[in-house]
């Protein structure tokens, strides 16, 4: 029998022997949560999930009463206003669901919800991790549905779509529609084109040929006037900005050939090119759509994270009663209660209680900051272990987090940009093409005014920059697809072009160069009666109940038996409990007596220190190697950290980095990068915290860690999904290879266009020859680009 959990496939801890029955066989599970979920799924007849899933499920955590209360508050009308829309008597909500990993999850969620009375429609999207639910509010409450999803192991949050995301969705749909029309119509036009090709050799009735031309004209019209319209509008937009872009020759070829073919059809003269322009439109659109989709997926992925600020707050009434209200209804001077583990909804002063607050999402530093009466706390930070009452002194736009977001937005408009190769080539190509076509027209006019028009058109068609315009998008699409497989999400189109030019890499410290979490580096026992193993086991058991970041270091030592009684968290000191009639405690060295130690955590048994744990933030394994690799390629590495202690300097020396700046505010980081950029350096910034998001927009290129704050991932050009720095050299390799392939593609297509141009200008190219040459050059370019997939 396998030794991994039946539900989440994680290893089974010793001491837990829960099992579930699936298809008459006993399978082990790792915890009560997974057991409950697996039993529920099997009992409801949804066991197909286990048969067809391709990715493991997440580990299940059970709901605590406080969480239930928050979920129930989602039924409140004022809170619902933000994320619910109405369709007749039905309500519609978009939930972002944590832990959807494959199509089996989507099926499971849809089946679970549709079984509830009152749910009219469920639509789960596995790529965006969102579920759209349409339900009848008189029959079922939103909180009941969320709880029901929780019972099969999915955590959900109401999702608020922002303007940008819904616009992108609309663009994606328009692409699919245009692509569909182009595809279906091209097939029809090709059919008639083939009939006419054969007709040319075997002789075709004049009437039929005339008829087929008209049919082709009717079928091609929607492709040109609907599907190819974006090319024309982009070209015009470019012209208005006084730029010649790639869309200009493309739309000149498409619309020029269309006008000429229509003229030929109506006036019974010349040649028609309907099939060529239809196919060209289809291929170009396909390339553009695939590239757009890869980027859409990346931005959807990052936008789909639960909100920074909570939707609800616990307001304290005059009477001392506690009321859950919508966070946006809070007013200045209101008193709110924040319990352990909750996110603080507004900036304010602590007026009662003491706690430690995790401000890592602001500062990137994972060590909690202790807060006592009179201290300022910030919206969006996480309250760790104590219960505090705060009086609100900043709301909405004035909160620190919104100030940082504003800083980030203002940097976006001033962002340095490098001129893209595409634009440069297009400028050159378009100008020479226009000159050449004009020259042809002028040259032929005195010789034969009749032929001048047709030969000019054939110059435009023959030089139709199919291969040229496919050269860059196909290479980018293949490179992006390859990188996505490697866990590197590319969000902006310019990344692959900018990357080979980067001369400086700036790194944040905590969470980027280090793992941003504590690991045990040393265990020292102080008493003979307990060995290291027992101490670690005791510590693991206790720390399992603590939310303190230090507790995470002990995660691996949790034995998963429930031998612990009377657990109590002592704010500011640590956590204590009773195991086997021993009073054990873990926390500050100075908790019980004046015991002095440098260790971050000390284990006490019956108030006597028995073991010291030394912890430190571990440097990522790959950091050393990556920085050395960058150096060998002539790229310098720099550290910009918000940490004011000496540890940044030590780490920089250890990693042999070129410079280090510590105690940087988000603004400082920006000014360092701006300074470098003004000296002509091309700067890439790698970071993870909210404090890195403004500097992301000052750098030429920005990379965020998957483990970082949501907002920094939103601002970044690249998200490293595996949070592994090794991705950086891999990314550079692919970018360099892409550059090389793009150059080859451009060379190939320019050779083709350059050699056919004089022939066409002399009137020596037959239409079918032009079509074959055009298709062949496009196919060669596409095949060359496909090589990027195998890197």
């Amino acid at each position, binding site marked *: 029998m396998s030794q991994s959990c039946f539900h989440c496939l994680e290893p089974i801890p010793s001491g837990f022997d829960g099992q579930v029955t699936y298809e008459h066989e006993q399978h082990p599970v790792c915890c009560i949560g997974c057991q409950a979920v697996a039993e529920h799924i099997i009992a*409801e*007849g*949804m*066991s*197909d999930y286990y*048969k*067809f899933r391709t990715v493991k499920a997440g580990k299940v955590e059970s709901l605590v009463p406080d969480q239930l209360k928050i979920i129930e508050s989602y039924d409140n009308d004022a809170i619902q206003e933000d994320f619910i829309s109405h369709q007749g008597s039905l309500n519609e909500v978009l939930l972002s669901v944590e832990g959807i990993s*494959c*199509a*089996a999850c*989507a*099926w499971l969620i849809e*089946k679970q919800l549709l079984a509830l009375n009152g749910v009219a429609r469920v*639509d*789960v*999207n*596995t*790529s*965006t991790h969102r579920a759209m639910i349409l339900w009848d509010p008189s029959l079922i409450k939103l909180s009941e549905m969320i709880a029901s999803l929780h019972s099969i192991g999915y955590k959900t949050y109401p999702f608020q779509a922002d303007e940008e995301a819904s616009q992108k*969705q609309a663009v*994606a*749909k328009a692409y*699919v*529609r245009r692509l*569909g*029309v182009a595809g*279906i*119509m091209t097939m*029809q036009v090709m059919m008639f084109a083939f009939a006419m090709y054969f007709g040319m050799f075997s002789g075709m*009735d004049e009437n*039929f040929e005339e*008829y087929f031309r008209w*049919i082709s004209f*009717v*079928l091609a019209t929607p492709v040109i006037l609907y599907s190819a319209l974006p090319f024309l509008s982009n070209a015009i937009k470019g012209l208005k900005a006084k730029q010649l872009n790639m869309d200009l020759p493309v739309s000149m070829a498409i619309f020029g050939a269309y006008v000429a073919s229509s003229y030929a059809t109506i006036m019974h003269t010349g040649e028609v090119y309907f099939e060529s322009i239809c196919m060209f439109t289809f291929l170009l659109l396909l390339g553009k759509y695939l590239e757009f989709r890869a980027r859409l997926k990346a931005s959807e992925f990052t936008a789909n994270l639960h909100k920074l600020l909570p939707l609800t707050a616990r307001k304290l009434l005059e009477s001392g009663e506690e009321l859950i209200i919508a966070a946006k209804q809070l007013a200045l001077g209101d008193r709110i209660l924040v319990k352990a583990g909750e996110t603080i909804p507004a900036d304010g002063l602590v007026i009662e209680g003491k706690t430690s607050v995790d401000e890592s999402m602001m500062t990137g530093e994972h060590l909690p900051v202790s807060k006592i009466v009179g201290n300022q706390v910030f919206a969006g930070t996480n309250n760790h272990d104590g219960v505090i009452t705060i009086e609100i002194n900043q709301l909405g736009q004035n909160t620190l987090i919104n100030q940082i977001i504003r800083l980030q937005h203002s940097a976006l408009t001033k962002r340095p940009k490098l001129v893209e190769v595409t634009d440069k080539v297009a400028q050159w190509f378009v100008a020479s093409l226009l000159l050449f076509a004009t020259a042809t027209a002028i040259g032929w006019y005195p010789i034969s005014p009749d032929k001048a028009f047709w030969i000019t058109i054939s110059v435009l068609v023959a030089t139709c920059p199919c291969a040229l315009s496919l050269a860059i998008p196909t290479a980018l699409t293949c490179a992006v697809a390859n990188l996505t497989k490697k866990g590197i999400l590319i969000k902006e189109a310019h990344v692959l072009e900018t990357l080979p030019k980067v001369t400086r890499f700036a790194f944040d410290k905590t969470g980027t160069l280090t793992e941003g979490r504590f690991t045990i580096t040393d265990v020292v026992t102080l008493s003979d009666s307990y060995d290291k193993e027992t101490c670690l086991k005791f510590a693991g058991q206790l720390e399992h109940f603590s939310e303190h970041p230090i507790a995470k270091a002990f995660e691996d030592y949790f034995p998963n038996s429930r031998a612990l009684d009377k657990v109590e968290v002592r704010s500011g000191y640590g956590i204590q409990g009773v195991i086997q009639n021993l009073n054990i405690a873990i926390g500050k060295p100075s908790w019980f007596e004046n015991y002095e130690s440098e260790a971050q955590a000390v284990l006490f048994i019956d108030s006597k220190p028995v073991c010291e744990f030394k912890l430190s933030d571990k440097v990522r394994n790959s950091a050393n190697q990556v920085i050395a690799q960058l150096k060998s390629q002539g790229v310098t590495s720099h550290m910009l950290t918000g940490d004011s202690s000496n540890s940044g300097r030590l780490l920089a020396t250890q990693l042999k980095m070129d410079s280090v700046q510590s105690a940087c505010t988000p603004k400082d980081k920006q000014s360092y990068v701006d300074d470098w950029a003004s000296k002509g350096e091309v700067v890439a910034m790698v970071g993870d915290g909210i404090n890195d998001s403004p500097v992301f927009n000052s750098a030429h290129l920005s990379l965020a860690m998957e483990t970082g704050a949501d907002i920094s991932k939103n601002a970044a050009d690249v998200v490293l999904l595996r949070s592994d720095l090794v991705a950086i050299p891999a990314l550079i390799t692919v970018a360099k290879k892409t550059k090389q392939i793009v150059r080859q593609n451009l060379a190939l297509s320019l050779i083709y266009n350059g050699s056919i141009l004089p022939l066409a200008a002399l009137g020596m190219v037959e239409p079918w020859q032009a079509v074959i040459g055009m298709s062949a050059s496009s196919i060669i370019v596409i095949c060359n680009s496909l090589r990027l997939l195998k890197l």
Partner: protein
Amino acid sequence: MSIIYVLIPIAILFVLIAIGIFFWAVRDEQFSDLEKQGHSILFDDDKEQHKKANERD
């Protein structure tokens, strides 16, 4: 052969209907998640009955 003058417009009519259906499908978000639709055929919605039938055996 002159029947072709009637048949081709009819064929075009079918194409237009196909495009209509395609537009409806796009609006209905059937193309927003390509992975899920491909797998949906594998799942057996009548599993509950199966199970109950098995228990009776």
